[in-house]
């Protein structure tokens, strides 16, 4: 691919190739070769990000065209799990959740934290959730004790990110996520659930952890990527 001088090596050559990559102009082999380099060369990746951002200035020229009806329904049929399909597997096994809850307690005891001491008689429900996400090494286990009005959450794995905080969210049904505050990594924490929120905590409530600016989301709604999430199950 050296038909002319412009495409020689050197910084300009690379820059031009990255711009061609961003535009989608490179032939297959070159495109793939550059994709491999982009994965390992941060300077090239930055160059690509720059071109993408600059070209995105043209995005307003794409005219809006109302799509035909029915597309959303077909998308939803594909991405929303059907109720009938969620009955089997480890994830839905009560034994698994009991085991997980036991693990959660064992961890808590080892950490010397959760007062094992006289637990009040069981007056409320208890929910447990394992929080994880594809592509993330961060895992939490969370336990909701209705009687105590607490969510107890422990990090099982994962590292803190510099200048970022993890924020916990509760999602009840289809309502917007409700922040439960910033949570530490590498230790457990007890989070008091405001009385007004407690009735919303039922099996199926989803707990999620997002990466947010230091101190938590400035807007009150999640802004960063989801690093772990899971639905609660009654135990």
């Amino acid at each position, binding site marked *: 691919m050296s*038909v*002319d001088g*412009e495409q020689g090596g050197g910084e*300009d050559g690379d820059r*031009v190739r990255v*711009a*061609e*990559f961003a*535009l*989608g*102009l490179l032939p*297959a*082999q070159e*495109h*793939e070769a550059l*994709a491999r380099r*982009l994965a390992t060369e941060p300077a090239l*990746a*930055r160059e690509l*990000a*720059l*071109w*993408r*951002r*600059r*070209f*995105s*200035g*043209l*995005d307003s*020229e*794409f*005219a*809006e*065209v*109302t*799509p*035909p009806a029915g*597309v*959303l329904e*077909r*998308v*939803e049929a*594909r*991405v*929303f799990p059907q109720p009938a399909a969620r009955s089997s597997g480890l994830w839905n096994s009560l034994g698994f959740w009991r085991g997980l809850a036991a693990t959660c307690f064992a961890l808590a005891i080892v950490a010397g934290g959760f007062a094992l001491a006289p637990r009040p008689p069981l007056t409320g429900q208890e929910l447990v959730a394992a929080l994880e996400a594809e592509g993330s090494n961060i895992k939490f286990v969370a336990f909701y004790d209705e009687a105590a009005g607490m969510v107890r959450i422990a990090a099982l794995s994962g590292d803190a990110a510099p200048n970022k905080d993890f924020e916990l*969210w509760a*999602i009840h049904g*289809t309502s*917007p*996520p409700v922040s439960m505050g910033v949570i530490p990594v590498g230790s457990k924490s007890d989070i008091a659930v405001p009385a007004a929120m407690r009735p919303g905590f039922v099996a199926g409530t*989803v707990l*999620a952890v*997002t990466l947010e600016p230091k101190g938590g989301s400035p*807007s009150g*709604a*999640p*802004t960063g990527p*989801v690093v772990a*999430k899971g639905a609660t199950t009654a135990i």
Partner: protein
Amino acid sequence: MSQSTGEIADLIARTALRDRIAFRELYRRTSAKLFGVTLRILGDRAEAEEALQEVYVKIWQRADRYAAGGYSPISWLVAIARNHALDMLRARRPFAEDIEQAIEIADLGPDPERAAVEADERARIDACLGELEGDRAEAVRGAYLDGFSYEELAARHKVPLNTMRTWLRRSLIKLRECLSA
């Protein structure tokens, strides 16, 4: 558009949390834009509709990869639609290739005002394209907005293929200087 930018970012974040209502709202607010993208690049309504469906499946699956950086949320969505449409075009061309990783967009760090960024990028690319000769700026726009290949651009501008390559590469070098000034 810029006023709703923050709202679109919130809808993407809520979609990442598997909030179906937010996803529907995101579709309602953005599908006309993304259909405009797939239709312009693919030039066929049936194909554009099929592409749009795939694009929203990807958005549902990848919403958690949207990092609030110096990149507007609409541009992030447009990039998914544009890359998917280009992918379909490539599949038709002699050499199929995988541009899957083209969807990854680097987080550019702490976010400035997203809406301001949007307007800013528009003004900047317009100014810099304005410094190129008219037909060369048109070629760059044709590659980005219509997904034209070098062959298609050469045919449209009635110049030999190598001339088009040279034009475009020189234009990209000039553009880069102007854009990073």
